[in-house]
């Protein structure tokens, strides 16, 4: 090729040029809106899942309650949830990437790593497909796969969310969990991988 192509992406071009044009970070942030150049520590409802978070169910008979293992029937279903910060009494639901699926499987069927991330059979997976960021809602009890409606990617719940079919290329991230003294399912750490869709 005779010449080098120019990358005119917005991240490389617009925001910086806007900054230059407007002469300061404050006015640039005002123009750019919800994506500030320097992110302050997010408010608890936007913060990614943290160690110690409990899980607030968004669906099913225990909707609005904090998850305990007995709320899930083994192998039967997955239930939507968001992490809940007990310290600030806040559901972290203003960050779509925090949307998770709670399910319960027989630990004897899990691979070792998956079992290590589970608590009394409870597993917490990201509900955001790693393909194009769609919300996963479908549980296939026969294959024990989580299925994405959008483009039909399937992830093996017994095997750390490994891709089993479809266009996704990355495993579905998990939130490692344990049980706290009150019997609630709590996060032992953040996501095992970056949640969200791919850019290719």
């Amino acid at each position, binding site marked *: 090729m005779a*010449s080098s192509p120019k990358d005119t992406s917005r991240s490389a071009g617009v925001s910086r040029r806007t900054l230059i044009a407007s002469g300061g970070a404050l006015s640039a942030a005002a123009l750019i809106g919800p994506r500030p150049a320097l992110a302050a520590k997010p408010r608890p409802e936007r913060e990614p899942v943290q160690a110690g978070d409990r899980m607030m169910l968004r669906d099913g008979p225990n909707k609005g309650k904090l998850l305990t293992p007995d709320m899930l029937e083994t192998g039967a279903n997955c239930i939507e949830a968001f992490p809940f910060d007990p310290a600030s009494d806040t559901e972290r639901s203003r960050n779509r990437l925090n949307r998770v699926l709670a399910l319960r499987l027989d630990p004897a069927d899990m691979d070792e790593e998956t079992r290590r991330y589970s608590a009394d059979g409870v597993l917490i997976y990201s509900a955001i497909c790693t393909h194009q960021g*769609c919300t996963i809602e479908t549980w296939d009890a026969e294959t024990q796969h989580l299925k994405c409606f959008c483009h039909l990617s399937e992830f093996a719940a017994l095997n750390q969310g490994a891709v089993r079919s479809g266009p996704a290329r990355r495993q579905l991230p998990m939130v490692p969990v344990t049980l706290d003294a009150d019997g609630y399912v709590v996060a032992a750490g953040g996501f095992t991988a970056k949640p969200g869709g791919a850019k290719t």
Partner: protein
Amino acid sequence: MRRILPIVAAAGCALALPAHAQTYNAVTDARLANPEPGNWLQFRGNYQGWGYSPLDQITTENVKSLRPVWTYSTGVTEGHQAAPVVNDGIMFVSTPQNQVIAFDAATGAEKWRYVRPLPDDLFQLHPTNRGVGLYGDKVYMATVDAYVVALDAMTGEVVWETEIGDYTDGYYSTLSPLVADGKVVIGVSGGEFGIRGYITALDAETGAEAWKTYTVPEPGEPGSETWKGDAWKTGGGSVWMQGNYDAENKIAYFGTGNGGPWMPDTRPGDNLYTTSAVALDMKDGKIIGHHQYHWNDAWDWDEVSAPLLIDYEKDGREIKGLVHAGRNGYLWEMERSPEGPIKFVAGEPFVRQNVFTGLDENGRPSYDESKTPGTDKTVTFCPSLWGGKDWVPEAYSPDTGLFYIPSHENLCSELGGAPMEAREPGELWIGVPLDVILSSLRFHESVDTSKPVPIGKLQAWDLSKGELAWEHSFMDTAYWGPILTTKGGLVFTGGTQDRMFRAFDAKTGDVLWEFPTNSGITGVPSSFEVDGKQYIAVQSGWGVDSERMRALLQDMLPEGRVHNVPQGGVVWVFALDDA
């Protein structure tokens, strides 16, 4: 909601232009209304939406010698649906993830590339883009995070960008812009998220909003009598595809999507202007005419494509027509008028359709209730929820007088709704369980799967006679191939799982040439000329609904009959050696 970002060009990171920098031939209303034969200035080549090239160097006689002259990997997967748009030797191609790449159209040398950094939390139900619009010295693209971005045609620098919707509330755009009369006209999708659809026009020079017209009226507006309660607030009516345009009378014609949520009992009434053709006054966006193809949709039959503007003779009368191959499986003929109102002329099924029991004198269908799903009511109906023809553009050739339809035959759906939870912004809100949709596809009861099944069907219709001139069936495969017709007597289309790009004899339907590409072709083909040589261009890159259908067919046909289609986009450009 709308924000305009004024951009001041700066040197900084931009690399130098190539030494042979060209001047740019500005795109005007006059050029768009009467495009030069050697250029392909918009999605379907002309405002009428024909998908027709007046170039005739590549013919039925010599097409067998067609070969690739350059290719280019786009670097992304999913559905590559955009037409390569060409203005005086410069090609502009958009891809999934909202890239725009500019090329030297004859050599494939990249001039610049714009890559949109999409938000991390974006929910891409339809990761695709259907192409750019050109006007003046700018290139316009609507994005999946609900912006319109204007780029400098020679450098790719962002000139302005305007937010047209809130992606976190489920609004997004996949269509190519209609550009005319100093405005960039686009619409929003999101009917599966509980949005209320609209078409909006931005000033081509500044990005400022000129007008905004909802496809679902609010109480008190014309058409609002066809809604009850608050259903209009989440009534759908997505705008998936570029409108066509009557430049003489300055009227834009768009197709509209289905009502939302999917089940008809959630929004009783006819639900204007969903599943309709609408005529908009380009001056102010006012709806000055409409024809609703079917009322109170129950089948996910978005009528996404704008009707084609075709003048033809029927029953001894000259019709200034609007023609549309419906997702509802009917071929619709209508008549346009300088004032806007649309008059029904004729409608007849072009695939098996078992829902409509008849049309009245205005073209309003009556329904078989046993084929109409609802909440807690599951039924089987034909054609499937992907319809007789989905978004994939049909085409017209003024040389043959034929109207070409990329259709699906022998497919039906079994569908029923479930009671709905409250809407959550930015999340799916369909009213049909996802596992039901995922397993909804059925073959027509007459199909014997022990033999190859005709599924894809390219049809050529004689509008004057109202009859099928020829058809070509594709066996055991989905067919999502947009159509190009040429003065050389050819019809080009891909769309099948065998990755082929094919040329048909436009008069007879004979296959004259085929070539296996890298992936399945769901891109809109175009044709252009540089230095006296005719080229055919198309993107190959399988994904989105073509892959959804393929995956379901794989489970419906015996093992080994439906193969995987590899993903990853490539721009292909073909020509004759000795031209």
